[in-house]
């Protein structure tokens, strides 16, 4: 059983890393987006192997089911010229490599000082463990304030994004549905007596 789990871990990790690499090397941006979807799936599978079914399924639900759909939506709408996209590759390569090296060095220094190994390994997971319930209880009791603050930050981001793109266009033909529903027969219909005076 343990052997199968370890084997599956390596398979999913390998596919995850490969698809992550393909995201940045694929020529076609639509392919890149689809490789990212594959990467998310493998990450979700890794969560499931850990017994964290809530995190795994939410990853698929939010990132694959909603975020990447909108991403694909935008990528497909753009008329991307593939040859022009590749033109500046060599010019930007040194800069990109420098940023990558700095990032790797920073991560290494952080993990050198505070190794992740300090977290005690989880004990055997009981068969009836309810990951969702445990997470919910922690989030709404112990971590209530951080959770609420995160929610407020997200709300601010939503409002900011809408405010940035909102513009009133008085010339568009839009309908006020409330007024449409509120009309009565006498507002729209006038009965006319078409019979002329009797001869």
């Amino acid at each position, binding site marked *: 059983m343990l052997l199968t789990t370890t084997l599956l871990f390596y398979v999913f990790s390998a596919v995850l890393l490969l698809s992550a690499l393909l995201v940045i090397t694929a020529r076609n941006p*639509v392919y890149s987006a*689809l490789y990212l*979807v594959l990467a998310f799936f493998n990450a979700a599978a890794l969560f499931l192997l850990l017994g964290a*079914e*809530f995190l795994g*399924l*939410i990853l*698929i*639900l939010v990132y*694959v*089911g*909603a975020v990447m*759909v*909108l991403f*694909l*939506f935008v990528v*497909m*709408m753009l008329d991307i010229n593939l040859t022009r996209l590749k033109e500046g590759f060599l010019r930007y390569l040194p800069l990109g490599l420098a940023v990558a090296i700095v990032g790797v060095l920073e991560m290494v220094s952080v993990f050198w000082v505070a190794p992740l190994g300090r977290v005690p390994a989880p004990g055997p997971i009981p068969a009836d463990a*309810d*990951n*969702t319930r445990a997470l919910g209880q922690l989030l709404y009791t112990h971590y209530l304030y951080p959770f609420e603050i995160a929610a407020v930050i997200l709300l601010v981001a939503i409002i900011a994004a809408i405010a940035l793109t909102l513009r009133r266009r008085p010339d568009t033909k839009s309908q006020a*549905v409330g007024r449409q529903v509120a009309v009565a027969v006498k507002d729209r219909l006038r009965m006319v007596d078409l019979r002329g005076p009797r001869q």
Partner: protein
Amino acid sequence: MHELLTAPWWPPVWALIKIIFVLVPLLLGVAYLTLAERKVIGYIQIRIGPNRVGFRGVLQPIADALKLLFKEVLIPANANRFLFLAAPVLAFVPAMLVWAAVPFGPDVAISNMNAGLLYVLAIAGLGVYGIIIAGWASNSKYAFLGAMRAAAQLVAYEIAMGFALVGVLMLAQTLNLSKIVEAQAGSGFWSWYWLPLFPFFLVYFISGVAETNRAPFDVAEGESEIVAGFHVEYSGMGFALFFLAEYANMIFVSILTTVLFLGGWYPPFQIAPFTWVPGLVWLLLKTAFLLYVFLWIRATFPRYRYDQIMRLGWKVFIPITIAWIVVVGVALETPLRAVLR
């Protein structure tokens, strides 16, 4: 017998047997749902419907399937060949995968998983990839317009759908679909969740109609505007896979509405003649009724205009569901809690 059950190869084989026992009746159900649709809409429009193949047309779905199997699979000249062929599969596979969590009775499911509701919601949202990729890979403006419409519609209605499920969660206190049904046990149809969660019941079912791209929300296909939408370039089995996925999703939305809001396998009255009927029959009867409602809606209402669909999803359903979540939350803090749980 005991040795068989403990053998290491037995669990995967048993899972395979269960999958066959679910998927074969499902695909037969899909075939006969197409016939039922043509017959029901026929009678509603005072026609007879298909009546030539077999006795009163009962073999019509088989004739359709054979016809589609032998049709040539056409690939447009400028299409992206790989994605064009992969798209129908990507639409069909999630439509089958969701059935892994559907409970058919107490402890009768392919996998009676703890996070069943979450699994169902996550996998059901994947079907849109088949539609978007089909629209893009076809390299046709009609297909592309259909795909864009489908993507926007799915994202809009999935939110309302998710909120409607939050209400079920609040009452049942579990994500396990079998336990959600068992939480609705009691005196009969008024202890099912459709009554305390009536707005969620309506929002969920209507969102289900919208998510499966069925009339009156079928603008992704919209024959009169964009020919046939995302699958306009498909023929033969590619086209058939899209249809199998759509009808399987219809059956799935109906059975899930039954499980979540209509008491699953429980009879409507806890008295003698009703309790004699097995639970599976009740489950399928309720599902069949909801499927009939799908067809009834299609035969009755004209197609929504696109901006009205978006308005209904974002500005009507989402506020209604949020408001009712608050109502349910408050009710659970009052003495009503004992009645609701």
